[in-house]
């Protein structure tokens, strides 16, 4: 038996450029950190620049527009419109998180270099996730974005809360991963391949128990990532305990990462098995939005409240997937999800930005600490109000269009289940308003605790982050065509 000759695969470096740039950046950050103890301030900037740099190839690729395999003839890692859109989202979100972190990390003495290093690694994992089209890549990407996140969550080493947050996140993450792996192993066992296109080819349509089991377990792994009920339990505790910028990162980027995986799996991998995942998504969506909203009603800690809010939001995002099984509805649902993810990123990051800014003065995230904000920080209050009601979906703030797309996608199916789901979303968005409004109430309609009117100093980095988010939210809200277009373009190639 002769040893077969090894032929090195041809790599499309242009397509791989974002990942490469990111990797170099994170190594540079690490080295700089090692090299000098003094200019820590540099690190954040460096990370930011690196992220922006990695945005360049994304744009060039978008301009170029051709869908391509990164390894010649290998459909397991591709660059298509969907991948590009998501990469862009991850990178920008990562950039905003860096902005949010700059002062936060600098002022409470943390390991700064390692912080950015891990952050970038996690972003790298997400960027990889966007392109991954086979089980192993997805698995690796997932771990790459998770493991650093576990550690970042517990970054405030001396704070037991932070430890607890990290531990819970870690353990739950590992549990979920193990379930997912088992599912993947089954799928591999049935189809003999890990590449999604091959899997869908050999699965055809229809399902068998083993396939069902595999799919369910796979999806559960990511349902955990997007904190869908009943796999959401880690989120509130982790969000509360973790450093706030990381909370923002988890609630936006890593959640989006989970959705990206789910999308690639069900749209590319086992689209034919929609009668498995459609009902699953339906149940998850309804459970998630309802439970999330209901528990959120009772929260007194803003971060925790936002944790539940982001759980509920995940429920909305899952909704279109419950009807995405038909070729007629597939694209609608996909773009609905993508649009929601884009808008949600802007809204949520912004909100956390304000929370960080306020906490700089109040050193607390309790709802009371927001009382009377309008009296001493009208600017922040208005901005926060914008984000809150965007999340609630009040026109003309971006959120309304996101919700609208959900309604549209669910109604599009024309099935009873679809309309019922739409009504669920409607009722839930009303419940949600109640707690968003409570925050607004605290800021506008309560008076400042012991009349402390000293203004809040907002560092430039934070101002930048908030600026980006506010502009995005308002502009998109008034002229949604911007994202609508992106949403329609973001399609999977090679399915």
């Amino acid at each position, binding site marked *: 038996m002769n040893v077969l000759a090894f032929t090195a695969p041809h790599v499309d470096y242009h397509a791989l450029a974002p990942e490469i740039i990111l990797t170099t950046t994170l190594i540079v950050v690490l080295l700089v950190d090692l090299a000098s103890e003094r200019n820590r301030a540099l690190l954040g900037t460096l990370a930011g620049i690196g992220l922006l740099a990695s945005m360049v190839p994304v744009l060039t690729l978008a301009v170029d527009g051709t869908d391509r395999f990164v390894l010649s003839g290998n459909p397991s890692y591709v660059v298509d419109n969907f991948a590009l859109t998501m990469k862009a989202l991850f990178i920008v979100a990562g950039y905003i998180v860096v902005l949010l972190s700059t002062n936060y990390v600098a002022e409470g003495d943390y390991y700064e270099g390692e912080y950015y290093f891990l952050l970038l690694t996690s972003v790298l994992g997400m960027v990889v996730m966007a392109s991954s089209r086979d089980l192993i890549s997805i698995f690796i990407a997932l771990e790459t974005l998770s493991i650093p996140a576990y550690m970042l969550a517990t970054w405030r080493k001396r704070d037991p809360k932070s430890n607890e947050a990290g*531990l*819970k996140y870690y*353990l*739950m993450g590992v*549990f*979920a991963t193990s*379930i997912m792996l088992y599912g993947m192993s089954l799928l591999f066992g049935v189809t003999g391949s890990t590449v999604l296109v091959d899997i869908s080819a050999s699965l055809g349509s229809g*399902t068998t*128990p083993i396939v*069902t*089991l595999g799919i*369910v*377990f796979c999806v*559960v792994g990511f349902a*955990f990532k997007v904190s869908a009920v*009943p*796999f959401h*339990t*880690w989120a*509130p*505790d982790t969000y509360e305990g973790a450093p706030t910028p990381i909370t923002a990162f988890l609630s936006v980027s890593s959640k989006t990462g989970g959705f990206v995986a789910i999308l690639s799996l069900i749209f590319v991998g086992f689209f034919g098995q929609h*009668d*498995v995942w459609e*009902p*699953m998504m339906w*149940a998850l969506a309804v459970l998630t939005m309802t*439970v999330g909203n*209901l*528990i*959120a*009603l*009772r929260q007194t800690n803003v971060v925790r409240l936002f944790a539940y809010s982001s759980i509920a939001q995940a429920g909305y995002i899952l909704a279109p997937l419950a009807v995405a099984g038909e070729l007629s509805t597939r694209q609608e649902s996909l773009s609905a999800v993508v649009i929601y993810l884009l808008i949600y990123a802007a809204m949520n990051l912004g909100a956390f930005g304000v929370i960080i800014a306020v906490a700089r003065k109040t050193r607390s995230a309790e709802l009371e600490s927001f009382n009377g904000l309008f009296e001493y920080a009208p600017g922040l209050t208005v901005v926060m109000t914008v984000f809150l009601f965007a999340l609630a979906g009040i026109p003309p703030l971006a959120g309304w269009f996101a919700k609208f797309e959900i309604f549209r996608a669910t109604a599009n199916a024309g099935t009873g289940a679809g309309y019922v789901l739409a009504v669920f979303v409607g009722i839930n968005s009303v*419940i949600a308003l*109640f707690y968003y409004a409570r925050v607004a109430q605290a800021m506008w309609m309560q008076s400042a605790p012991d009349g402390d009117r000293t203004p809040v100093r907002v560092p430039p980095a934070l101002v930048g982050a908030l600026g980006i988010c506010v502009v995005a939210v308002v502009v998109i809200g008034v002229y949604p065509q911007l994202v609508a277009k992106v949403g329609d373009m973001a399609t999977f190639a090679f399915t």
Partner: protein
Amino acid sequence: MILHWVWLMPAIMATSFVVILLLGKRMPKKGAEVGIAAVGLCFVIALLSAGSWITRVNDASGGHTVKEQVATAEEHGASEEAAAAEVEEAHPPVQPVVTERNWFESGGVKFTIGTLVDGLSVMMFIVVTIISLLVHIYSTDYVRGDRRYTHYFAFLSLFTASMLMLVMSLNTVQFITSWELVGLCSFVLIGHWFEEKPNSDAALKAFIMNRVGDVGLLVGMITLFWAADSFDILKINTLANSGGIDHLVLLVAACCLTAAVMSKSGQFVLHTWLPDAMAGPTPVSALIHAATMVVAGIFMVARLYSVFFHGLSIGSGNTNLLAVIGGVTVIGGAGLAFVQNDIKKVLAYSTVSQLGYMVMALGVGAWTAALFHLFTHAFFKAGLFLGSGSVAHSVHSFDMKEDMGGLKRFMPKTFWTFAICTVALIGIPPLAGFWSKDEILAGGHELGVHNVYETFMIVGIIGALMTAAYMTRCVYLTFFGEPRGAAADPHHHPHESGPLIVVPLYILAGLAIVTGLANFPWGPDGINLRFEYFVQPVGDYFPTLGVITFNPYVAVFSTLAGATGILLAYLYWFRGAFHGATSRNKAARAGYTVLLNKYYFDHLYTDIIVGDIKGPIARASYWFNQNVIDAVVNGVGVGSREAANFLYGTVDQGIVDGAVNGSGFGAEGTGQLLRRLQSGKVQQYGALLFGGAVILAGILVFTL
């Protein structure tokens, strides 16, 4: 031609309203002069229009020949039918003068605004303008120095404007509008002294009870609109006449409108606001609650007579709603008048009962009679009110029992005018009241098959008797006997009122004497039955009515009734007859001597009448009035208030609102419950994770 310009009158009055309201306070006479000038102007216009209407009628019926026929008809004393025929042809249709402008358009329906002038409206112009003018003048003295002097005159103007508007309105929308406006003015003027709660109560009562009637008005008018597909009163009448409208519809409409009549014209059982309305200044009572506004209901029936005539099938001579209501009111009102000590209340109830006559007359088809009575009544009742005002002006009270008596010698002018008006009201020939009331009775006697309406004649005569009696009582208590209370106050004796008050009294008294002749039954052509001739419309928009000729028997009988009433009252009060058990015998003797022993029945007769009417019946009816009707009305108010409280307290705040909040709490409660899931123990989370996964998988695996 002036008849096209009558709209000037309301226009003038409205302007005067605005002017007084805005500039009145800065004027030397605080705006009164503007009002008086305006009304004076209107009076002139009214006279002119009357003149030109008369010529119009004469021209239409082309000179003398016709009248000769009438005359001959009369002379030959031909049978009534013949006479009727004669009169019919003698009086060819005179088209009313219509001026019309587009108002607005909605849903393809044109709403027009304009004036409809015929004998009826012209007659009303005269009444309204005269009384209003006199009241204006009278008021300058009566309410002198009142803190809201200017507003008072402003609203007098507004009232006159709306009243004139009402009587000249061309279509029902216009009619409703002005109908409500007069109501508003009455509200404002009754509540003129709103500082005291009773006054404002009275005002509210008046307005709200009228609102009740207005429901009927609205519904009725709406029904008529859809029936005739027009608001035009003439069109509605014409259609109703030509049978163009289904009888049932007419009936419904008529009944609904009757409700409006009841409230506006103080008919039983919606009359209770009228006495209370006396809380307003006396001139206002004279103008609004005696002479003009309260007859608006009568006017409406007269205006839409075809509707009522056919709707209630008056022609068929059966008893009907209007007649019955009228009848009841005549007696009820009169009975109530007995037991009042407040002079204005007496007059108020008297007004109620007189309005009852008019409604009854319309009910039996005696159109002209009703309107004629309206005409005469306006003057002498206004006279009475102003007289009572003059009295009150000097004794500062309306209580006859407490603060009056023997005023005859202090204020003779007032006394004489008051007396004349009283006699006119009682209906002693040759004063106004006699002629008009007599016609009503005659109508009751002569119209209708099998003389069903005789009943109403009897009612009328009884009413006449009672009227006579209570008015005599009133006069006695006021002007005769010994001064009491304020009247006896040694420090300042009651004094005759000034010219501004007395002159109007003279005028009204004079009118009370002469106006009766306006429909003088005999005499040469061109003199007799002028009122009927000019006022009663003839044409396809008006039903053909039976003709009423003067009936001497009825006349005599009613006069006797009146006289008896006076006599009995005289005996009772002036001579103190019939007091106690013994007095009965005296009464017997007195009756005996007076009536030249007519088989002793007079003893029984008078006994029963006087005794019962003055006693139980009156008291009973008053009790009924205060405790039942009024109670019911107030009860409705209170009841709805209570219902409201319950509805608001329990239903709205409790159930409807509660449901919503409840769901809110429910949501929070569930939230609270679900939080238990979040135990904080990582391994329970894990259990949830694995459990959830396996349940999901299990369900899907085993179901798919």
